[in-house]
């Protein structure tokens, strides 16, 4: 099987006043086409650096990042990004916000087609009727939905998400997991999701990668063998509970608290 994303032996350090701060240490990640890869790890372990590397916004000190059999050295149009902060542009309507990537990636696409494409996505995430609103008129969950639409409007090969649901309340978050699942069923894409939420990683992921504490190495890879049409209830099955428990233990090891009484 060919891997859409291939991260080979990536090592990276930030230059700080106190000397180099290593964040990634010989990291290896493979994500086959169409797969959903969730990445978990202790805070500050270099997860966000990973997203910037895959997006081509940064170059690693050592090692290689490959997308679609091509080495990534600069940003490419086939990537979509979503962050914890929905970063919608307040001077644009929701519809125009979703269209934004198309203006860059497909400058010759007729405006009517762009709007149709954006409307289709907005409808899928339940934002029909809100396309003319300003971002500040929407709730946090709705804004994040709009942000999701924007990140896949140009049909990217890879969707990179950096804790997109981190700032939402627990129930809204679960709603968005289901939205995400439905979007993936409707338009397949390969996804890298950075998260702190183990339940989220199991619900959405085909594989969950646990990174060690800084500098991050691949500490554990878990295959999630749940059916594709998961529901929130799937998280309350014995299989899911076992996976969550295993992940929790791995995180504890990553935090370096293996011997602690808990």
């Amino acid at each position, binding site marked *: 099987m060919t891997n859409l994303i291939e991260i080979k032996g990536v090592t990276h350090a930030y230059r700080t006043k106190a000397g180099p701060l290593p964040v990634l240490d010989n990291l290896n990640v493979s994500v086959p086409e169409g797969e959903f890869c969730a990445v978990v790890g202790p805070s500050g372990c270099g997860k966000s650096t990973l997203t910037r590397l895959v997006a081509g916004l940064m170059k690693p000190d050592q090692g290689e990042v490959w997308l679609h059999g091509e080495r990534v050295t600069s940003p490419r149009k086939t990537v979509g990004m979503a962050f914890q902060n929905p970063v919608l542009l307040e*001077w644009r309507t929701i519809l125009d916000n979703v269209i934004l990537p198309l203006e860059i990636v497909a400058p010759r696409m007729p405006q009517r087609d762009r709007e149709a494409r954006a409307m289709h996505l907005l409808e899928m995430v339940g934002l029909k009727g809100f396309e003319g609103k300003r971002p500040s008129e929407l709730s946090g969950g709705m804004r994040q939905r709009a942000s999701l639409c924007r990140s896949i409007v140009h049909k990217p090969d890879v969707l990179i998400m950096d804790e997109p649901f981190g700032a939402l309340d627990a129930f809204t978050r679960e709603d968005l997991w289901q939205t995400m699942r439905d979007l993936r069923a409707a338009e397949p894409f390969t996804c890298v999701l950075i998260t702190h939420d183990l339940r989220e990683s199991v619900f959405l992921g085909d594989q969950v990668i646990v990174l060690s504490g800084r500098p991050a190495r691949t500490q554990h890879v878990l295959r999630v063998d749940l059916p594709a049409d998961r529901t929130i209830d799937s998280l309350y099955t014995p299989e899911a509970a076992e996976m969550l428990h295993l992940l929790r233990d791995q995180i504890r090891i990553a935090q370096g608290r293996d011997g602690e009484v808990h």
Partner: protein
Amino acid sequence: METLQKIAVPTLAILAFLGVWEFIVWVNGWPNYKMASPSDLPPAFARYSHLFLEMGWQTLWRTVAGLGLAVLFGTLLGMAMGFSRIARDALYPLLVGFNAIPKATLVPVIALIFIGQHDFNTVLMAFLISFFPIAVSVGIGLSTLEPEYRDILRSLGASRVTIFRKIALPKTLPEFFGALKVSVTLAFIGTNLVEIVSPHGRGLGALFKSGETNGDYPLMFAVLIALAVLGIVLYYAVVALERIFAGWAERPQS
């Protein structure tokens, strides 16, 4: 009803102000060579109406020209400071120092360098006094742009120019207009400063000066009122522009 209130409330406030003024002058029995009262003003305006129109126009166009230069130069300077750390470190102390100099002290300097160029000197002063807030606010607006905003477009391979046009520029507009509201008043002060201080000046400032020379207090006060009216007009012109170009930044009031 709401529009009526919007017009009626400020109008009543102005009338109340004029009433109190008239009352104070009347109670103290001040003659009009000591303190003019509002009722002295209409005759003064009527008597010198052609001068007011001519001088008012002089003051207006020179202020707007100076402000225009300030917008151009201030925006460019702000962009340099917003995008480049080195430019920011280099320019900031210079700008702050320059801004701290009382601009009245520059009038004789400018007058000596550009002798007799009254229009030029006035525009120059309006510009010098008003570009600072624009440069600072544009600089801060650009340098505090959250990296995620840039990353959204950068990750698609957008050029720096595109990112500036689609994100940085519109995002900075509210700060820009906030600064412009300060600058428009400053430019107005700069214009009048030169008009009053420099000999053989023109504009409302010069008219004020001639009122002072002739002991014509009603004329002096009439000029002050005319200046206030011009100031209001300029300020609200900026507000109107802000509504058009950055109206989205105004939160709907509930």
